[in-house]
């Protein structure tokens, strides 16, 4: 519920705006996913193609809108926001970094090293 007891009236407009934004993002994602333009698909930044970076950033934008507008985090206290989003982002980023680096390392061992039999 909003911070005050006063009822918010204009929330509907916000909801539909967010819906339109999220639909547009999804459409862009699907178009990019189907055509996979070479300029994006073949350029790598940090072991990940530019296309994949775009997908991931767009996904985070969508997640932001879901959490802020639909789950109404924008109306909650800053403490609640931080305790949920801060914890989640820290732990996820930490885990993703560690485990993907490990996966990449194992890939390298499988492909380039001669001692894979003890691995």
């Amino acid at each position, binding site marked *: *519920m*909003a*911070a*005050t*007891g006063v*009822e*918010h009236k204009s*929330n*509907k407009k916000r*909801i*539909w705006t967010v*819906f339109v934004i*999220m*639909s547009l993002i*999804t*459409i862009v*994602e*699907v178009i990019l*996913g*189907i055509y996979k333009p070479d300029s994006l*698909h*073949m350029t790598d930044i940090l072991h990940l193609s530019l296309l*994949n970076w775009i*997908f*991931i950033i*767009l*996904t985070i934008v*969508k*997640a932001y809108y*879901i*959490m802020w*507008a*639909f*789950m*109404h985090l924008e109306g*909650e*206290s800053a*403490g*609640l926001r931080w*305790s*949920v989003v801060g*914890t*989640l982002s820290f*732990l*996820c980023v930490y*885990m*993703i970094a560690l*485990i*993907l680096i*490990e*996966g*990449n390392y*194992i*890939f390298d061992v*499988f*492909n380039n090293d001669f001692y894979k039999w003890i691995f």
Partner: protein
Amino acid sequence: MGATVTTTATNQTTWGGGNEPLGASYGKLMMWYFILSDSLTFCGFLVGYGFSRYKFMESWPIADEVFNHFPFLHGVDAPMYYVALMTFILIFSSVTMVLAVDAGHQMKRNKVAFYMFLTIIGGLVFLGSQAWEWKNFIKGSYGAVETRGGAILQFVGEDGKQIALADFAVELQEDRVLHSRDNGVWFSGESSIPTYSLEEVKAGFEANPNVRIRTQFIDETKHKIILSREESAEYLKEAVYVVEGANLVRNEYGHKLFGDFFFFITGFHGFHVFTGILINTIVFFNVLLGTYDRRGSYEMVEKGGLYWHFVDLVWVFVFTFFYLV
């Protein structure tokens, strides 16, 4: 919830109860922390998927070659459209949910009921779509053979496009009987036998000089490597199984872990959708019965709504990492 907000700093009121930490009611706060922990679970699954994918980077299946079905468009290559549709369905049911919460704030019972109903329908449609998706995945559309080393070999026609076993396999007069437990030792049986035997596939390969084999490996242009005719014949000698569709042991799309993660992650998400529908249905009937009207607050709709949006949130990530990336 203005009545319960305390601003006095005396010990009496601080420890006397009726306080709301972080300005949220108990139920809502706990729902948020449940969502937090559940998100970490999903993050663990998706990272596990990412780990396997990085580990087998050069041989992982390409998603839009696997998920290319659309209802009523048989044999048409329609990558991504169906999952995009599913995403829209879920986002839209999120919108109706948030409209229900909004109507709840204004204590409009009929409106809440109407939007809750739409949300439940959206959830059911999504679940049905997922069932259809699973059906296609399990049934498979092309078929492949597996080598002794566990690699999947798919077949392509003249134009380099994948073809089904049925397109080239030769019918041989042989009777391969389903091996069941009562014919052998009790622990050994099989669930089904493939439509074509290995001999039939091999004979079909000999009879059709245009058929070549596509390996699991990806070249510099991020396409699967297609072998020459001679190499294909060499590879086919290693084949031991005919694989049709997918199960938890092997799948025709490529790496075995791909199928396992697909069933596991989309299955776990689907289970969340299912429980979400259940919760929404209970809330819906309570709205109809006027429970929240009597309670004077529609906060339960809001809490159920949080869970429902969370399901949507997870799907956004599953969509990206399973179908797009």
